[in-house]
């Protein structure tokens, strides 16, 4: 025995090889020689460790410290620090993606800690090229037991008792398969191993063969004894050279030791094994096609029956098992079927290996008990979705499977549940998709794969997949027709029923599954030519423009900044957006979430660039538009929706009057958003542009109070109602009516109406303030209270990453010194002398996933605590106040206190002369959403009026032609998004001066030059 003080286990799976582990190993060997440590420290190259995303990986024993993403250059420092000085080299350790916590040992990293290793029990622990290391970990003990202590029937019985089901995908009980083959008469029988893994995204079979090849060999010998076979084949695709090489070494070693071949272990049992290399056709993973291929013929399936258990390879009884199935066998025999069945669900026993890949932080191999929830795999083990994106669905079972969408994150994954949800277990490829994946495109991709791989023997599969692919391709290119979805649904079951083998029988699954869960996406593609994930490029010019609710021509104005043509850039903004300087400050910039540059480094700062144009270009002069139409139009509410509609209608020649309850127009822009985010004069200028067109705004008039609803109905031909959502939701806790408890928007409105009084201290809320909620209005309220001199704590019932508020707002609040308490919910408001004295809260922990894909907070019993405060702002959501609409008016209001729209219309209410939009229809939404609603209403109202008058449809006036320069840099260098300069110091925390200072010319041009110009056509 040679003792080493330390073992370095370096991952030598294909994944780590590809990321450079061979060079790392070479450097390590050289460094140990140089440092004269080769006699004390042993290097072991293992198979796949499982954490492929982080490769090359090395585990140092005895400490169990795991280093990741190692480069050859790191080796001298690593050896010096860890192996000589005994200090852990922190910079190469695992960093938890959300908390940034550094975790040194493998057992503590959730990715490893939450797994249960049976099939993968030796991964990263043994040298797969040394049979002794396998034997040291109970290797071949199961085989020895099967050959000496058990009869064939005993073995079958044990496997039946274990409940093991075929891990290749179909889930047929392995014991039953063996039983049939054992009962089948014949001198010559075959044991076959299916290692023709070919699903996009699945790589567990390859990893098992690379990391633990002897486990598969052992399983095959046991299977041979069970059915009475003397010869076997491993059918492995030639694209797996490392797996084949290691398996060859393993077979050689086993033969040398007498663990394969004649008279195994002196028991008199003979079994020989060879590898058959497949050429990589997907169809050869099909049982009968695989056998045909081994026979030397073209790999095509044949009809069953006869089943392989009766007449398989060369018409002899055969069993075919998948790699993962066989790797389980040795342990089952050694430890017993009951041990195996002790984990799992009622009908699905044991563990399952998943190849976790796609949009997930911890890409790699994961082995968990059957019944583990999808959410646990994706979030706890997988570490969630990179860049804080939202989970959309997981594709399970590759091109033969289906999607499991966000609302089923709590689903326990086993054969039954997965089938119920419309997917299949398959071999266990789990492709995680985020919100940037298009369901139709995914279906098209998988159909393309199946169509490509269809062997052509049977017509339903050969022609059916081709037709389905054509229809799907048309839909993704904007050439979809009504009835396409129904046609796909009609074809799918026919192809499934009539195809000869599993390939055709499962090929329609991804289509059916995506239609089941994402039918609306199909309809959007077909009817509106919209791809909300901004994937199907034939449907749009650029992803940012497609994502903007008013489709602003973003690439054009960014190109104009780069060309220093600010005046033209401003004109481009105003074509679609009456409030560009507002949006340049407070828009939630959905466009940036789909910016292609974000896939390279960070998205373009579209919002900041928009603001730069409005700050620096001369404002185009607005001329009044002559009133050419007879119809009189009223708008209720002077917020962004109402004013946009008024402007559009005025431009079309209508006389428009806007009624506003509050003393000044602007809606939430004026009455909720504080001046440090949106200075008053900026807003006032853009509102003035609307009145300059001839729109009349009458303030201090509330419909139903100063002006009756009936009079409105009588005096105006058409009415657009956009009153917003200005009423805070109640928390529903005791003490909410006390003085000192404010609603979020009510507090902001009062402050914005009486700013002077608040700032001078004539109005005050006290020195300690708690704000409840996690949205933008909670942050606004907190930052205002801070500026009024209060010590502010935000209480939120979930975690920071779940807050709906804009990230930059949360960061700004943190920078200003606002305290955050996460995972707390209010229970009761405490009072003293009739005034608020504190708030009692309960701590929460995160439970199951809700339909939005976030974990539901659940109260921790006995965790209540009281926070002493003088005032409480409850900013947990808003609802519209639609009490001005009489019940019998014919305009219908629903139980969520929003307007019902007429069937098929995007803006008309249940009374044909009344239209509605903005928050009062959608519930609280964004500025840009309100502007989009205003445009929509103006178009719809004008169209309805012209239709009623039998007039021709409105024609947009010809726009001034602005030619857009096309400068594209050949080589883009990685560069992060430009930072917005901000106000700092005491002035920021005590005044309402604008915090964001705006880009300089240099900043703006540099940022504009980062644009990849997705709009360019070549």
């Amino acid at each position, binding site marked *: *025995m*040679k*003792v*080493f*003080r*330390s*073992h370095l*286990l370096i991952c030598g799976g294909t994944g780590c090889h590809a990321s450079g582990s061979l060079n790392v190993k070479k450097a390590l060997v050289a460094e140990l020689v140089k440092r004269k440590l080769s006699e*004390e420290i042993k290097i072991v190259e293992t198979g796949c460790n499982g954490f492929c995303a982080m490769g090359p990986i090395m585990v140092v*024993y*005895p*400490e*169990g410290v795991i280093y990741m993403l190692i480069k050859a250059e790191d080796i001298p420092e690593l050896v010096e620090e860890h*192996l*000589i*000085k*005994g*200090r852990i080299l922190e910079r190469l350790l695992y960093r938890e993606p959300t908390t940034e916590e550094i975790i040194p040992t493998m057992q503590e990293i959730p990715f490893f800690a939450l797994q249960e290793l049976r099939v993968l029990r030796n991964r990263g*622990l*043994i040298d797969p090229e040394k049979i*002794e*290391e396998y*034997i*040291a*970990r*109970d*290797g*071949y*003990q199961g085989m*020895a037991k099967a050959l*000496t202590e058990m009869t064939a029937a005993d073995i079958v019985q044990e496997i039946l008792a274990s409940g093991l089901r075929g891990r290749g995908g179909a889930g047929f009980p392995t014991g039953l398969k063996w039983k049939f083959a054992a009962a089948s008469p014949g001198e010559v029988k075959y044991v076959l191993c299916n290692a023709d893994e070919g699903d996009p995204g699945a790589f567990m079979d390859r990893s098992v063969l690379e990391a633990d090849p002897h486990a598969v060999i052992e399983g095959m010998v046991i299977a041979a004894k069970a059915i009475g076979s003397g010869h076997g084949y491993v059918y492995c695709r030639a694209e797996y050279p490392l797996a084949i090489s290691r398996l060859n070494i393993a077979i050689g*070693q086993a033969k*040398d*030791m*007498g*663990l394969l071949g004649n*008279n195994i*272990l*002196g028991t008199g049992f003979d079994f020989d094994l060879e590898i058959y290399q497949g050429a990589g056709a997907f169809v050869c993973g099909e049982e009968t096609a695989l056998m045909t291929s081994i026979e030397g013929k073209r790999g095509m399936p044949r009809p069953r029956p006869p089943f392989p258990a009766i007449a398989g390879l060369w018409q002899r009884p055969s069993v075919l098992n998948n790699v993962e199935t066989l790797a389980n066998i040795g342990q089952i025999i050694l430890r017993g079927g009951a041990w195996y069945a002790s984990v799992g669900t009622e009908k699905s026993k044991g563990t399952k290996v998943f190849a976790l890949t796609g949009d997930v932080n911890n890409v790699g191999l994961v082995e968990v008990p059957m019944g583990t929830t999808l959410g646990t795999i994706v979030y706890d083990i997988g570490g969630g979705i990179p860049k804080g994106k939202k989970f959309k669905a997981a594709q399970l079972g590759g091109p033969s499977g289906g999607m499991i969408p966000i609302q089923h994150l709590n689903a326990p994954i086993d054969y039954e549940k997965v089938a119920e949800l419309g997917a299949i277990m398959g071999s266990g490829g789990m492709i995680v998709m985020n919100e940037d994946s298009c369901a139709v495109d995914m279906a098209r991709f998988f159909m393309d794969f199946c169509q490509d791989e269809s062997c052509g023997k049977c017509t339903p599969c050969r022609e059916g997949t081709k037709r389905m692919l054509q229809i799907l391709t048309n839909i993704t290119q904007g050439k979809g027709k009504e009835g396409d979805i129904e046609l796909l649904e009609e074809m799918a079951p026919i192809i499934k029923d009539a195809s000869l083998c599993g390939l055709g029988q499962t090929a329609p699954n991804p289509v059916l599954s995506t239609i089941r869960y994402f039918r609306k996406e199909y309809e959007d593609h077909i009817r509106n030519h919209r791809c909300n994930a901004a994937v199907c490029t034939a449907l749009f010019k650029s992803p940012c423009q497609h994502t903007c609710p008013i489709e602003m021509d973003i690439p054009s104005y960014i190109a104009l900044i780069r060309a220093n043509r600010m005046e033209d850039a401003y004109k481009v903004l105003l074509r679609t957006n009456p409030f560009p300087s507002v949006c340049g400050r407070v828009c939630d910039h959905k466009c940036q979430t789909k910016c292609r540059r974000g896939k390279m480094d960070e998205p373009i700062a579209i919002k900041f660039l928009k603001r730069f144009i409005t700050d620096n270009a001369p404002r185009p002069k607005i001329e009044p538009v002559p009133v050419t139409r007879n119809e009189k139009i009223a708008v209720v509410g002077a917020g962004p929706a109402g004013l946009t509609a008024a402007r559009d209608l005025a431009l079309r020649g209508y006389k428009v009057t806007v009624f506003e309850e509050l003393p000044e127009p602007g809606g939430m822009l004026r009455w909720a958003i504080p001046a440090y985010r949106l200075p008053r004069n900026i807003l006032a200028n853009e509102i003035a542009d609307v009145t300059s067109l001839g729109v009349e705004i009458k303030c201090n008039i509330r419909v139903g109070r100063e002006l009756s609803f009936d009079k409105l109905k009588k005096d105006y031909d058409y009415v657009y109602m956009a009153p917003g959502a200005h009423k805070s939701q109640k928390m529903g806790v005791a003490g909410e009516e006390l003085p000192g408890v404010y609603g979020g928007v009510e507090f902001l409105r009062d402050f914005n109406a009486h700013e002077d009084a608040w700032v001078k201290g004539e109005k005050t809320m006290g020195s300690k303030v708690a704000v409840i909620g996690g949205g933008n209005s909670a942050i606004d309220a907190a930052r205002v209270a801070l500026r009024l001199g209060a010590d502010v704590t935000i209480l939120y019932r979930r975690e920071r990453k779940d807050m709906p508020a804009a990230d930059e707002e949360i960061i700004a609040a943190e920078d200003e010194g606002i305290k955050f308490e996460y995972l707390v919910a209010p229970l009761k408001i405490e009072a003293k002398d009739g005034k608020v004295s504190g708030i009692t809260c309960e701590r929460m922990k995160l439970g199951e996933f809700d339909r939005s894909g976030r974990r539901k907070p659940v109260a921790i019993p006995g965790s209540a605590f009281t926070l002493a405060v003088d005032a409480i702002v409850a900013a947990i959501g808003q609802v519209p106040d639609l009490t001005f609409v009489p019940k019998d008016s014919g305009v219908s209001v629903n139980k969520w206190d929003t307007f019902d729209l007429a069937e098929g219309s995007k803006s008309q209410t249940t009374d044909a002369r009344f239209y509605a939009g903005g928050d009062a229809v959608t519930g609280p939404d964004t500025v840009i959403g309100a502007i989009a609603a205003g445009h929509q209403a103006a178009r719809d109202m004008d169209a309805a009026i012209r239709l009623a008058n039998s007039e021709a449809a409105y024609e947009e006036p010809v726009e001034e032609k602005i030619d857009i320069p096309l400068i594209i840099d050949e080589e883009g260098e990685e560069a992060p998004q430009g930072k917005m300069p901000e106000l700092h110091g005491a002035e920021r925390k005590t005044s309402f001066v604008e915090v964001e200072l705006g880009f300089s010319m240099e900043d703006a041009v540099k940022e504009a030059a980062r644009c990849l110009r997705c709009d360019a056509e070549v």
Partner: protein
Amino acid sequence: MAKITIEDLKKIKERVHAETALRDGHLRVKVTVHMGTCGIASGAKEVMDALLKEIEEAGVTDVAVTTSGCMGLCSREPLVTVEILNQDPIKYEYMNSNKMRQVFKRHILEGEIQNPFVLARGAETQK
């Protein structure tokens, strides 16, 4: 290679298991040889070699050897810390190969602390 029997299978298992036991995490004793520049200069390397040789000869599988940097007492190097599971760590000073062999046989294997070489008991704590 000769064909093996079931008995051989067990022997291989036991032999190799001893070599790879380090990766299992079932360790009874951890010995730290302090290998800062001072330690190496005063002979820590020879101390460690002796220790590894002893472990090999004794065939024990539950003793881990690690190194660490200078612990700040350069004048008393080579220093060796012996930590037996659930016991206070013992620091030995002025070690050499012979003393190391003695500590291994008497303390690590038999549990008898070699008082004449002891510098300190217990772990250093940080304030």
